[in-house]
């Protein structure tokens, strides 16, 4: 049939090269960094806002709100990029998971220290920190489990082919 007598005009190498921008490690690093920085920033700014001692003037509230929305926008952009634009393979997920644990732990420590120094809002700060770090730990555990399952499957299939 016609297409059986025709061949794709683009060589395989060119097809694969055009996928380069999506497969670039930098694209994944940028997306993970945007998501983590956005989330960490949101938690930090929100914790500062919440634990601010005394009544705040309207302009300060507005500034905190703008900062929070700004950080949320980066988190949303990073999340959208990671789920829709850039593939995160199993090994990438493990690395991203550990980055999330590191970033959430650092943010949790920072938020808790600020709350202790101010002497207010300690309980909410600890609560938010636990949720944030907990979510990161869940992500890294799931990433390790997924990678381990794929490695087991790879070993089984390689063994079957070797027979």
């Amino acid at each position, binding site marked *: 049939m016609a297409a059986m007598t025709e061949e*794709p005009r683009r060589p395989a190498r060119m097809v694969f090269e055009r996928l380069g921008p999506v497969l670039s490690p930098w694209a994944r690093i940028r997306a993970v960094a945007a998501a983590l920085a956005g989330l960490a920033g949101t938690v930090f700014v929100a914790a500062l806002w919440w634990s601010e001692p005394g009544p705040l003037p309207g302009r300060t509230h507005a500034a905190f709100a703008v900062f929070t929305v700004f950080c949320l926008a980066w988190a949303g952009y990073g999340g959208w990029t990671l789920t829709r634009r850039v593939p995160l393979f199993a090994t990438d997920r493990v690395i991203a998971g550990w980055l999330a644990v590191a970033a959430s732990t650092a943010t949790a420590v920072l938020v808790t220290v600020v709350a202790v120094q101010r002497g207010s809002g300690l309980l909410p700060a600890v609560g938010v920190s636990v949720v944030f770090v907990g979510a990161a730990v869940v992500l890294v555990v799931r990433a390790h489990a997924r990678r381990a399952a794929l490695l087991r499957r790879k070993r089984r299939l*390689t063994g079957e082919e070797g027979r």
Partner: protein
Amino acid sequence: MTDELLVVRAQLGERAALAELVLRWRTPVWTYVRRMLDAERADDVAQEIWLAVVRGLPRLREPDRFAPWLFTIARRSITDRLRAEYAEAEAFADVAAVSDDPAEATVERAELTAGLSALPVLEREVLVLFYLEDLSVEECAQVCRVPAGTIKSRLSRARRLLREQLTEKGWQP
């Protein structure tokens, strides 16, 4: 190496396995797209398909079902392209004419092609998936998102239409 092993290795992040998958499936994907669109658009749509495949590969839960998953993505990309260019009804009527190539009408294989390209798009699609891409009826059903019985009836109708087309052109079985 089986497709399943290649997919698993690619899902782990092995670039060489992903390149091998592209190399292995590039022509079948392009052939399917080419049967539905003209050569110019086939190159672009095939590239879009590979982009969607790479983006979706980490989420593929059944690596042993790679081929139907791949053709489901291919079908969606073709449909999106047709929808973007025409009203749906016009598109289904027009693609047949687009794929016609009079220069190929001199050999028997090309006559088959001409007959195929004159078929309605749904029947042509199922012939391509079943005969050219070697998918099973169940896999065709998964790709086209219709019951297996519908695929069987489309295949039957497609064979009849193709036979009529070829007989009209004087082809002898």
